[in-house]
């Protein structure tokens, strides 16, 4: 599973992307966040306030209950501020 980070989420995690292989019990975005947050202090910091993080699965905005599976591209980022 390919994970992408943007803006301050990227800065806190300390990388722009990583390949991960979460255990089988990680089935949705919420579970993936729990698992990622335990990977390093940087990850923990990035995901400290879940409500300020947005997610996209395969380049579509996703909610916490969106399923994730092997091969997905999952991105985490702050609320968008373009325009």
């Amino acid at each position, binding site marked *: 599973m390919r994970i*992408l980070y*943007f*803006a301050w989420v990227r800065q806190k995690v300390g990388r722009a992307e990583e390949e991960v292989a979460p255990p089988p019990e990680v089935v949705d975005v919420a579970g993936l966040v729990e698992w990622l947050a335990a990977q390093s202090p940087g990850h923990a910091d990035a995901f400290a306030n879940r409500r300020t993080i947005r997610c*996209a699965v395969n*380049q579509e905005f996703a909610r916490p209950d969106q399923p994730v599976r092997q091969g997905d591209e999952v991105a985490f980022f*702050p609320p*968008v*501020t*373009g*325009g």
Partner: protein
Amino acid sequence: MATVRVQQAVFDLGAESAALAAGRHDIGGMASFVGLCRADDGLAAMTLEHYPGMTERAIEAIAAEAEARWPLTGCTIIHRVGRLPPGEQIVLVLTASAHRAAALESCAFLIDWLKTRAPFWKREEFADGQERWVEAKAEDDAAAERWARG
């Protein structure tokens, strides 16, 4: 079908407008919005980060929604990325229709939705060396919300 571009380069409102109207005699009105970088509070520059791939898809989806809601003869959306000092253009939304209300309303709709649905993030650099990520504004959510249907 909308023209969507995400680019570092500056864009040319006059040229984009001329391209959308070229050879057509069915356009009654064209509306545009250009967002620019303001020098508020000692801002030295703004850097726009985006999510390559998803950005284009998200903007195309927003443009498709506008084309479903209004009878447009054309639509161009260009969003710049990278480092932009004050005074620089950031975003262009351009719409054309037989009727002025459709052009004006769809233009306002597109910029409101772009602000809340396209994956861009702004980081501000100040003259004193400080940097900060721009926070999403509740007023932008409210502006986008007014286009909700039903």
